[in-house]
């Protein structure tokens, strides 16, 4: 897996951390480089100042050949001052005109009278510099591949040069100070890191979590509809926040569409079933009518022995049963009927009340009808009685049935709600199919008939389950008064 393939929940905090660390290191190292340069410059300036201060004294010592005083003079700066961890210089040398040591702070390594060039490569190079390019003032020489700085100062009066003071400084003399300063710098950087890294980590996760969830949810689309995202997870107005709301919007639309598709499929199935049932009923009714007529004729005009009559009766009852069943399937809503009025509704309630009382049910009715409506009263009464009886059947003792009926916006709106024994979501999708019964007693045609009637009246019926309530909602268009 490549680095950039990692999840944002890892990548964002890590990248943030890397950037913070790089920044901290960058600032620290810039500061260190600047400090290093400044300390080195300080060292050079201090040493040149020291050499200018010592030169006149050493001139007197050379003039009077006062070796001891010269020694005291040059060895003082090589001693650590009280309270300090380092001396001003590593070594001080005074050479005469012939480049022999007049005095040095370390006579063991640079004894009196020896030639400067015999002290090593660096000193030989310095000797050449002194003879070939003499200067009037103190100056600093940095030799290649040397750990030392050399401050050369002429020891001279106005005219004559008597010798040269060489101050040898360890280039790393200021390193302890540098390390101390660098240490503080690093400590500060570390504190910043300790402070910033957790903030960065939290912020990175905070940014990445919504993205991660969004990605997971989006990945589910196609397989099933994912849950919506909690808007509180990221309720800001930036691109991510907008992505969130767009996602939730899209999800809502997907849900609506899926719901619609489900309803279309269901109504198409029911329509197909209705057609099939009607066609079959017609096909069965025609020969059935003939058979019943024939039997009736046979019974009236022929003397039949008891055995035969018994058989004929049996056949007649069977055929009648077929006729009833087929008749029940074949819902004919084209009956002429009077208009619906408020009393029709009250009647239906009255009809079911005995049964409701038996189960001690609480029945609530809102009857919004205050005038006759141009909807067929017989059919509406049939629909209502079906729904109410179903509700009484399903409701447990002490339960509640709510019936709400009112005309609005050109439709008759009816709603029957009950609690108690509720069908499953799967069962609900088959409620309106013929011979589908939830209890053993029923023939399973009540809701089928209801559906067919509603359908033929050009209305809509919906069965939904809302929490612990079963709800039937109907809308029957009211025909404009003739």
């Amino acid at each position, binding site marked *: 897996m490549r680095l950039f393939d990692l999840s944002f929940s890892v990548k964002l905090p890590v990248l943030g951390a890397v950037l913070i660390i790089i920044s901290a290191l960058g600032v620290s190292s810039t500061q260190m480089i600047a400090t290093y340069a400044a300390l080195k410059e300080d060292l050079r300036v201090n040493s040149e100042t020291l050499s200018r201060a010592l030169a006149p004294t050493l001139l007197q010592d050379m003039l009077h050949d006062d070796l001891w005083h010269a*020694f005291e003079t040059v*060895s003082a700066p090589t001693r650590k001052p009280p309270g300090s961890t380092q001396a001003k210089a590593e070594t001080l040398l005074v050479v005469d005109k012939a480049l022999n040591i007049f*005095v040095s702070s370390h*006579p*063991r390594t640079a*004894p*009196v*009278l020896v030639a400067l060039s015999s002290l090593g490569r660096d000193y030989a190079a310095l000797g050449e510099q002194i003879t070939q390019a003499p200067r009037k003032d103190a100056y600093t020489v940095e030799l290649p591949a040397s750990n030392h700085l050399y401050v050369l100062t002429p020891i001279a009066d106005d005219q004559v040069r008597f010798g040269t003071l060489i101050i040898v400084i360890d280039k790393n003399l200021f390193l302890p100070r540098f390390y101390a300063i660098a240490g503080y710098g690093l400590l500060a950087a570390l504190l910043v890191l300790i402070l910033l890294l957790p903030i960065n980590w939290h912020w990175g996760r905070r940014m990445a979590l919504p993205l991660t969830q969004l990605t997971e949810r989006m990945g589910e689309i196609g397989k099933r509809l994912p849950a919506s995202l909690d808007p509180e997870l990221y309720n800001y107005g930036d691109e991510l926040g907008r992505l969130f709301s767009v996602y939730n919007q899209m999800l809502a639309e997907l849900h609506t569409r899926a719901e619609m598709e489900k309803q279309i499929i269901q109504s198409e199935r029911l329509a197909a079933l209705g057609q099939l049932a009607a066609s079959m009923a017609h096909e069965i009714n025609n020969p059935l009518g003939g058979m019943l007529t024939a039997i009736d004729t046979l019974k009236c005009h022929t003397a039949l022995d008891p055995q035969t009559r018994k058989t004929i009766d049996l056949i007649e009852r069977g055929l009648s049963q077929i006729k009833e069943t087929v008749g029940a399937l074949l819902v004919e809503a084209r009956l002429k009927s009077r208009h619906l009025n408020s009393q029709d509704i009250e009647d239906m309630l009255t009809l079911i009340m005995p049964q409701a009382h038996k189960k001690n049910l609480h029945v609530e009715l809102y009857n919004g009808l205050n005038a006759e409506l141009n909807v067929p009263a017989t059919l509406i009464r049939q629909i209502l009685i079906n729904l109410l009886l179903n509700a009484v059947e399903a409701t447990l003792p002490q339960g509640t049935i709510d019936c709400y009926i009112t005309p609005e916006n050109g439709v008759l709106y009816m709603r029957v709600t009950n609690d108690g024994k509720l069908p499953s979501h799967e069962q609900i999708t088959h409620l309106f199919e013929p011979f589908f019964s939830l209890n053993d007693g029923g023939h399973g045609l009540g809701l089928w008939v209801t559906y067919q009637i509603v359908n033929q009246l050009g209305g809509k019926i919906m069965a939904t389950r809302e929490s612990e309530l079963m709800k039937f909602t109907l809308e029957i268009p009211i025909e404009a008064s003739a």
Partner: protein
Amino acid sequence: MSRFLLPISNIFHHSCLYLVRALAFGAFALALSFPTCGATTEMARPAIRFGVTPAIVHDQYGILDLWRAYLERKLQRRVEFVSRDSYRDTIDLIKEKKLDFAWVSTYPYVYLEYRHYARLLATPLYRGRPYYRAYFIVPSSDTQSTSLLQLEGKVFAYADLYSNTGYLVPRYFIHQAGKDENRFFSKTFFTWSHRKVVMAVAEGLADGGSIDSFVWDTLAVIQPDLTKNTRIIGKSEEFGFPPIVVNSAVSKRDASAMRNALIDMVNDPEGQALLRQLNIDGFIAGTPKLYANVARLQRAFGER
């Protein structure tokens, strides 16, 4: 030798151990505070002026002040210590009769005695005897040299131009060996103090040096880190210990009073404590014969 002199014992000429100026001012201030308290006739007389150069012992000022107070009580006279940083100054003060007594080095003593500017008053006893000598030292890193004569062509540190053990003795030694003492070393220099001779040799600035045995022995006790970096390769003959001299102008009565006070120091606890701090054992009357060999050295260089 035209510039010939020195104040008190060259032994005591050690800049880092004493506070020359402070001492001079201190002694002067203390001396001034006494005239008012003189009740006796003796105390009414002018103060005795005693020339000193700082001694090697630590806490110099305190010791000398205690010693001065001790002498005042013993002599019943005001005593004023006069400290000078250079041998030359002390000799001049004696010549000009501005000092009644002085503790001087052997070399100036011989000079002053010979010219009758001053007389021997008392000689200190060091390790029970009135003698000291010169040590010839080299850095301890030099493990080869066994004699001063092996240092030919080297760098050599002298203490003082007017020092016996720090200048005259090594030069005489070389002279006696038939060498030219002025060209024997490739380079010589003065440190103006015996102690600094030890430092110069210990640091390797000089390949050799000559030093007062009293100084070296005392340093070996109080500053062993310094002396352990040096090695003694030769010792000279013994010389009379740097003495106390009395100006020729001082009356015999006053001189003997001072001599008795000094010699009696060993007899009382306070005097003994002072002697311990001065790192000497006492004073004896002494005799010029003790210093005869110093005179011989001077004669060898035609300096008398």
